[in-house]
């Protein structure tokens, strides 16, 4: 019996499927505009869109992993609380000098600590991180009152900061392998160099 194969052209099949899908489409109403503090999404994006914040937070996590217990578990618990104190200072518009240079300095110092695998008493390390946490929190807190939904904005940046720490701690797990140690030190060097760049830019050394 004579039989032959017939296939509809591919473009026809794509057209048949995609046409109704396009008919169903609705306008996207995304109200989170760049530069405007809205709510949860703006809060999440705030630490992620500031590279100086981002690398410093990841460096905090990595350094905590390098220092080991108790730093590795006290850090993610207490850092957000100390950062919130800085956030409150920012909300209250309390003048805090040298915010941007200190944030850049935090990336430089923490990156250098990671690169050199700096060991120091836990209390001293906690003090250094706490001072930087206040400055980072301040920068977020200044934006909070202008947000459409301050609570959602606050939740967003606290969660994003915590996830950046988690990212750093996860990277720190590479310490189990010798090559991982070298890789982490290399990352610390890159973070410190970026910190240098941001520091120079914040004090006007680079346009």
């Amino acid at each position, binding site marked *: 019996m004579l039989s032959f*194969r017939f296939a*509809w052209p591919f473009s026809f099949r794509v057209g048949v499927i995609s046409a*109704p899908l396009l008919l169903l489409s609705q306008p996207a109403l995304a109200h989170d505009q760049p530069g405007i503090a809205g709510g949860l999404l703006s809060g999440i994006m705030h630490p992620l869109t500031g590279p100086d914040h981002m690398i410093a937070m990841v460096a905090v996590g990595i350094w905590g992993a390098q220092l080991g217990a108790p730093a590795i578990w006290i850090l*993610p618990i207490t850092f957000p609380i100390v950062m919130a104190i800085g956030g409150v200072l920012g909300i209250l518009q309390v003048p805090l000098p040298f915010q941007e240079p200190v944030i850049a300095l935090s990336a430089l110092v923490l990156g250098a600590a990671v690169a050199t695998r700096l060991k120091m008493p836990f209390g001293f390390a906690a003090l250094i991180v706490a001072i930087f946490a206040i400055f980072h929190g301040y920068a977020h*807190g200044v934006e*909070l*009152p202008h947000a459409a939904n301050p609570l959602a904005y*606050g939740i967003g940046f606290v969660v994003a900061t915590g996830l950046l720490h988690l990212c750093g701690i996860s990277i720190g797990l590479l310490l189990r392998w010798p090559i991982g140690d070298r890789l982490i030190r290399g990352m610390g060097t890159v973070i410190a160099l970026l910190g240098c760049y941001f520091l120079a830019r914040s004090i006007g050394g680079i346009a």
Partner: protein
Amino acid sequence: MTVAVSRRFAGAATALAALLAITSPAQAHLIGTRLGDFYSGALHPTTDINDVVLWLALGALAGSLGAQRGRWLVILFPLGLAIGFFLTATFGLSIGGNATDAALIGTLGLLLAAGLRLPAPLLGLAGLSLAVMRGMANASGLEAVTNVPLFAAGLVCAGYATITLVMALVIAFRRAEVGRATAWRGIALRALGGWIAAIGLMMIGFTLAGPGSA
């Protein structure tokens, strides 16, 4: 593909396209069945992020303390919601506000972060008080046309389901590492407490002294 099969495919695709093309937004008008206000009550807490954070924080705290200490909340939390709702809907009473909510968020977060072993009666009392306040807050936006018993039933059911599920999830999460050398799950829960405490602390500052106090 034979001609018969390809024709069948084309027919099915055309029918599907026609069906999809005539779809319109789903509008679940349950008013006729009087279930509309039940769902309004159940979903109302999701419209206030204070409710979302406070309910989750309380569930996480109770779950972190274990089933033995937290189980009373399964009854007390929905009961508190019902009492608070009734007091506001009937007598117009209202307790709390943004500052109280922020303080509660901060306190629950600190308790979770510190890993304090709260006794069961204190946890129950805290859960009941919080539920009464949130019940009042949820009743404050009632409209004249709202069916109050259905709305309240929805709210209470949502409270029961949320607190029970969150507690159960946290208990199951903790139980998975019993007897193991590494206890990262407990640390993760305490870190979550740190996040919640930070949010509460900032909102206290915002509502009491920042622009939010105006």
